[in-house]
């Protein structure tokens, strides 16, 4: 195994992602290109930690949290589009479906007409 080959290889994957993200206008192609960025970063992290350090856990815990957070973020973006497409977004965000509803009348009571 050679760290230079692995690093060059990860850079090729990164460039493929860059090319796809710049060239394509489709949502799915841009998402796939983002996956290439993530995989390329993963190869770099794990490769360098394997070749340079005897046994380090810092990078592994970083990769652990980074993969979770990046994919939750991507999940959020895709779910936003999905909810827009299926009208879930308007049901949840615009309609009165919240568990706890609080508006002005909950705090100050209903407005009464004093003249009556």
């Amino acid at each position, binding site marked *: 195994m050679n760290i230079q080959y692995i690093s060059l290889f990860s850079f090729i994957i990164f460039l493929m992602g860059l090319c796809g993200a710049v060239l394509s206008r489709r949502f799915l192609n841009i998402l796939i290109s983002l996956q290439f960025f993530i*995989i390329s970063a993963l190869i770099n992290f*794990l490769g360098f930690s*394997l070749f340079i350090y005897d046994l380090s*856990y810092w990078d592994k815990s970083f990769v652990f949290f980074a*993969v979770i957070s990046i994919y939750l973020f991507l999940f959020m973006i895709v*779910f936003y589009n999905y909810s827009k497409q299926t009208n879930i977004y308007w049901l949840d965000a615009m309609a009165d479906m919240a568990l706890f509803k609080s508006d002005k009348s909950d705090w100050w009571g209903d407005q009464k007409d004093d003249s009556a």
Partner: protein
Amino acid sequence: MDGKIILGFLNYLTEGIVFILGLLSLLVFGQKKKLTFLFLMFLAAGLMSFLFFAGFAFVLPSISIMGFCIILNLFIQNQEFFSSENSRPDSYNGYESKPKKNVIILYIVVSVLFTAGLGFLFFVYNDDFFKNISIVASFNTATLFGIIQNISENYAPLIFIFIIMLFMSIIWFIAIIKKESKKN
């Protein structure tokens, strides 16, 4: 046969599989095929993380990757089910949906030249760095217990990622609010 040679061969093999599946997922027509190749690429990446002796660092967070894959599949299936060819106009807000052939070729040539230039610069300026690097004598496996212990002891990566996620979330919500306010 030496273990390191076998490991190296397997490593290059899985990296090659990741590259080929990724390229296929970009080039293949049809969204479902793209998603299939993308999922296979994730599987290959999981295998590759085991070959880097850090399988737990990628396989445990794969639960979130699975969630991402499922919602992406649902999104694409929904899109294909409800969309029809008749509903797509040829021009949308003055922009033509299909650019001309020579424009597509120009895009491809410019992007390939740009990425090739970047790759050349990367190769030239990193050559000395890799020649001077000192590599460890033996490779060690990161255990799950070690990773958990490190997570409980070292909060720096968590705080770092938390700050980045807060920053990204703020940008994302600003983008949504602007989009929504334009519509309203």
